[in-house]
């Protein structure tokens, strides 16, 4: 299995299209960092404008606010919405791309079980997803920490703002990136499942993105009847729960409690739902592929 996995990774990382995603992430991160480096104050003013009626912010506070942690939060908010497309590019191609190239039938004449083949393919897609997130973490988190320095992190919420101490931030990012890995693996598993049905990779990539977009719109819609009936079952409703790691508990005086998470059970429940989705998508993909006649 390890030998097959090495082959899959070799194939993925030998393809020029693999690096499109890494290039796209690097470009977006650098553009955001450059913009905020030179015009960060305007951005902070814009962010605080909704709160300025009830709060007074001096320039010193605003300078403190513009640090690597906040920049990374901004980048994560922007990029985690776009990343499913980048993930779908590889996972949607996993089986359909091989079918399109004609290499699937050659691979299936080799002494490899279909289940083993699917597990190896999915693991390779998972490793690719992790690689993307590691690159993103390096650029967005550590890059921003280097460029902007670190300080207490301020999170803006509809109820107001909360301040997380400098030393209490980094572990939250590791947790958030870990969560994002599971969320993006869910998208990867969906694209992988759709890839089994197709004979070229465009179909599964477009289908995955369509599902993600429709589900995201449904997740974001403020229609009460959907809140109980549909939203809890959409995986997209749970993909944004990584933000939960940055929502902290406060004591009676309103001071945030270090190391706390406001609603850990909700975050864990969302995580569990995403993991169930991954197993359902992967299980269905393997089941279909085992029964499939390879006619390409």
């Amino acid at each position, binding site marked *: 299995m390890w030998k097959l996995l090495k082959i899959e990774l070799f194939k993925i990382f030998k393809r020029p299209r693999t690096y499109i995603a890494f290039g796209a992430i690097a470009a977006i991160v650098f553009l955001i960092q450059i913009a905020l480096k030179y015009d960060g104050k305007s951005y902070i003013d814009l962010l605080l404008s909704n709160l300025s009626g009830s709060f007074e912010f001096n320039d010193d506070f605003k300078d403190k606010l513009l640090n690597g942690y906040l920049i990374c939060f901004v980048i994560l908010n922007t990029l985690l919405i776009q990343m499913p497309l980048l993930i779908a590019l590889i996972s949607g191609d996993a089986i359909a791309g091989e079918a399109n190239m004609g290499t699937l*039938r050659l691979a299936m004449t080799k*002494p490899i079980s279909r289940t083993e083949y699917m597990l190896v393919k999915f693991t390779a897609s998972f490793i690719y997803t992790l690689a993307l997130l590691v690159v993103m973490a390096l650029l967005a988190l550590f890059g921003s920490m280097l460029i902007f320095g670190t300080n207490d992190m301020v999170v803006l919420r509809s109820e107001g703002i909360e301040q997380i101490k400098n030393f209490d931030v980094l572990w939250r990012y590791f947790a958030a990136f870990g969560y994002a890995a599971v969320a993006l693996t869910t998208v990867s598993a969906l694209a992988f499942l759709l890839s089994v049905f197709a004979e070229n990779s465009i179909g599964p990539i477009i289908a995955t993105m369509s599902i993600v977009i429709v589900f995201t719109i449904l997740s974001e819609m403020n229609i009460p009847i959907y809140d109980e009936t549909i939203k809890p079952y959409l995986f997209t409703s749970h993909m944004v729960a990584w933000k939960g790691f940055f929502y902290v508990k406060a004591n009676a005086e309103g001071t945030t409690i270090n190391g706390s998470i406001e609603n850990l059970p909700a975050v864990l429940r969302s995580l569990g739902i995403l993991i169930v989705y991954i197993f359902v998508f992967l299980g269905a993909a393997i089941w279909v592929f085992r029964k499939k*006649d390879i006619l390409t």
Partner: protein
Amino acid sequence: MSTIVSVKNLYKNFKEIKAVNDLSFSVEQGQIYGFLGQNGAGKSTTIRMLLTLIKPTSGVIEIFGLNLQKHRKEVLRQIGAIIERPDLYKYLTALENLRIFAAMSGVKVSEKKLLDQLAMVGLAERAHSKVKTYSQGMKQRLGIATALVHDPQLVILDEPTNGLDPQGIADVRNLILQLSKEMNKTLLISSHLLSEVELIADSMIIIDKGEKIVEGKVNDLFDPAETIIELKTIDDESMYEKLKQSSLESFVHGKRNDCILLKLHRQQVPDAIKQLVNMDVPILSFHSKHSLEDYFLSLTTGSQHVEALKN
């Protein structure tokens, strides 16, 4: 001689379509076995079932004496195959492709052996070139190298000369003969090109609409001495009528593509030429075509095709 492939009462239905219908045949060790049929006859479906790409609706396939469904991995370890086209990873080099398929076949092959394999198919000098820069013939040869990289006992080639130029066809034919005679491989070769199979196969099966029409040794299936002569003259129409009223009348077989067809035994050919010259027939060309093609067409599509040929 032991049986390498044994197929019994094989069926494959795609919804209402019976792609393979009660097909049985066997391939003996060391044979080059021709698998013949027109496009859509069920050749590729059968070959895909032999390679576990398609599940049979019913029937039994045994390869090396093992049930294919139950011993899939053990059996496939000993088979090398190309199905229709040798599709490979175009963005990788020939050597990288070969290394990948060797590893997938469960064998570790040294760099030197991989290069030897490429040399055998005449690609050693292009070992480090990306496959996307290869011609169709080179891809075909590389496909054969990938099919052989793990030294299989049985080699299955589905339409191995498809898309090749005459030189490419000759190269593949020689390679197949080399595999059989020098390396003692068993080969199952599907084709719709009867002349190709005739040149290399020991035994063959002809199928049509998924059913076996005939199976046996190539030499037993038709009279090798019988030949069709394609005669081209200056005025085919009048010469055709003239021949039909001559002593050669019984040999006149029909007309095809502006040629007059004569059906003769080999020993009758010199006499026929003499008579044509004596009759002042203005001959432009005179060449022999084997009767296997007509035999095949008469078997697979009956009189309808024979009539079409005559017209």
